[in-house]
């Protein structure tokens, strides 16, 4: 039984990373109906910026983290301004392909730096060891990851419920025409959504850096795992991103923990989320909390 709970706990930790990553993804989709295939690269940009600042400039990890969040937000903002804005009103395939192209460009740029290949780990800033509770061990970084995710989500929740900008963003997601006529700058909201997505992506990257090592492929892989998460939770639902993230994290760990033994080569955790994705698409395409699209002639 303690094996089960151990898997559950590590699933929640992984799931909180997915939840954060998915949050940014959903923000972009909600505001501008764009599926961002470069999300994994935003995660990588955030994580490696923090790593570069803390190792080469010798900044403390916390300052480096804040600067990385800001930098990724700027990257997100200008990505929207430069590359996505000219494509407003174009068919979906163009918008999808431009994010795929951007993913390739970002990948190339990261490969231009020494961080393209190899493993890196953020300098330790937390005490070793962890909490032991009834045979289940949780390390401090893991604990921090969950707490940090919780705080981050609460901050975003406050931002969307209370702040003017957040309310404007929700209004645009709801009805662009109506919010435009009430004086909300839809263009600005699109760019802000990308900036906010950059922040959450960087936060996810930082957490990965805290609980395990950084490597480009792994970080970009999180960008792919976001798809099962958002489909399960509902593409346009922020609570869905959080719930979906944690469920997928748990399922992935459970699958790896219980099924790997029966499969030559293992690695069940990598594919299981996508099987879930297909099942959800077959039986409940709009996910747990997504808005059902009703079509009328």
């Amino acid at each position, binding site marked *: 039984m303690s094996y089960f709970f151990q898997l559950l706990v590590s699933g929640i930790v992984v799931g909180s990373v997915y939840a954060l990553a998915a949050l940014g993804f959903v923000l972009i989709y909600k505001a501008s109906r764009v599926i961002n295939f470069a999300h994994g690269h935003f995660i990588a940009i955030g994580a490696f910026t923090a790593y570069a600042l803390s190792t080469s400039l010798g900044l403390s990890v916390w300052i480096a983290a804040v600067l990385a969040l800001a930098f990724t937000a700027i990257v997100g903002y200008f990505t929207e301004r430069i590359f996505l804005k000219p494509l407003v009103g174009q068919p979906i395939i*163009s918008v*999808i392909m*431009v994010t795929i*192209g951007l993913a390739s460009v970002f990948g190339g740029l990261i490969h231009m730096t020494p961080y393209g290949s190899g493993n890196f780990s953020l300098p330790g800033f937390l005490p070793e060891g962890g909490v032991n509770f009834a045979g289940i061990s949780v390390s401090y970084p893991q604990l921090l990851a969950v707490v940090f995710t919780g705080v981050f989500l609460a901050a975003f929740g406050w931002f969307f419920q209370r702040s003017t900008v957040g309310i404007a963003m929700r209004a645009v997601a709801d009805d662009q025409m109506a919010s435009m006529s009430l004086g909300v700058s839809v263009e600005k909201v699109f760019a802000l959504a990308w900036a906010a997505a950059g922040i959450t992506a960087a936060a996810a990257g930082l957490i990965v850096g805290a609980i395990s090592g950084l490597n480009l492929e792994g970080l970009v892989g999180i960008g792919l795992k976001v798809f099962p998460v958002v489909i399960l939770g509902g593409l346009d639902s922020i609570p869905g991103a959080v719930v979906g993230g944690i469920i997928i994290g748990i399922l992935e760990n459970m699958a790896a923990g219980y099924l790997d033994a029966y499969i030559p*080569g293992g690695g069940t955790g990598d*594919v299981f989320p*996508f099987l879930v994705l297909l099942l959800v*698409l077959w039986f409940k395409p709009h996910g747990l909390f997504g808005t059902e699209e009703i079509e009328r002639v």
Partner: protein
Amino acid sequence: MRNPWTRTGNYKTSYAQDTTIFATYSEQASLAVFLIGMLVLPRFLVRGDMQILDLILIYALAVLGLNIITGYAGLINIGHAAFMGVGAYTAALVAPHLPFWAVLPVSGLVAAAAGAVVGIPALRIKHLYLAIATLAFQLIFEWAVGHSPALEQGGAMAMPRGMVFFGYKIAFKNHHYFWYYVSFTVLVLMAFGFRNLLRTRFGRSLVAVRDNDRAADAMGMDPGKTKVFAFALGAFYAGVAGALYAYWSRAVVIEDYSLMISIKFLAMAIVGGLGTLVGSFLGPAFLELLDINMETFSYAIKEIYNPPGVDVGSAIRPLAFGLAIVLFLIFEPRGLANWWRLLRSYFRNWPFKY
């Protein structure tokens, strides 16, 4: 009097004339010149060039399939390389037992079956959701191959060597030349199929479903069935391309059918011009030549910028590839096919501007 060599006006008096493939003799003549040119081209090329040319032809075949799914039917497919992979692995499994001209259609049909299965969710979901479903199929395919001992877990599965075709032995030296002619013949046949698709009832219903599936439904077409058939047909093209690729590369390796390649196909279709025949040739040619030139270009960059721990070669290629996609989408969304069209109309109207 109508001049049969050039288009001087609209002289069409029947539907048969309206749906004809060749409007003028000069179109037939230019096609004949193109075909003869492609047939004698290998005489002037060395083995290394042939390799690139073969790759472009095989990719063009796969992109034709993608253009049926994504260009005609408007279903975004991020799993096209997986269809090609299904064809290639089928070829690897049946090649020892069948002659190669029988392996190609068998691989195509197996891939078509896979395509139909992947297309089933299209009965219910569309647009982005469908794109994500094909992405999932791609990843599940890669994982499944990587865990199948029967498929060497994604490692190299050798194809038969030393084949004899009508007394013509295919060995190391003439390998690329032989498969050039095979690929080219298959490509021409299937390109004719592609070109004729829009003249059929099924082809036109594809476009109708793409433009407005509810209106198509109201007019008596079955959007779900049409979409599933579109997937099957496009996957058939990919499967044949996969079998050719397997023979041409002499082995089947999972890396040749990965997500990166699927993305490459989409990029080729976009850069060439979605849903166009000429774009299906120009797109693969452009991106493959770009890739090769970037490899040479990276040596020049290394002279200036080559810090430790950085592999400029592996950085510059995705960078150029991504920039090509982004710039084409922003500045020329209709792709190279549009340049081709402008070029042709320039010469047709010369010396007048329009």
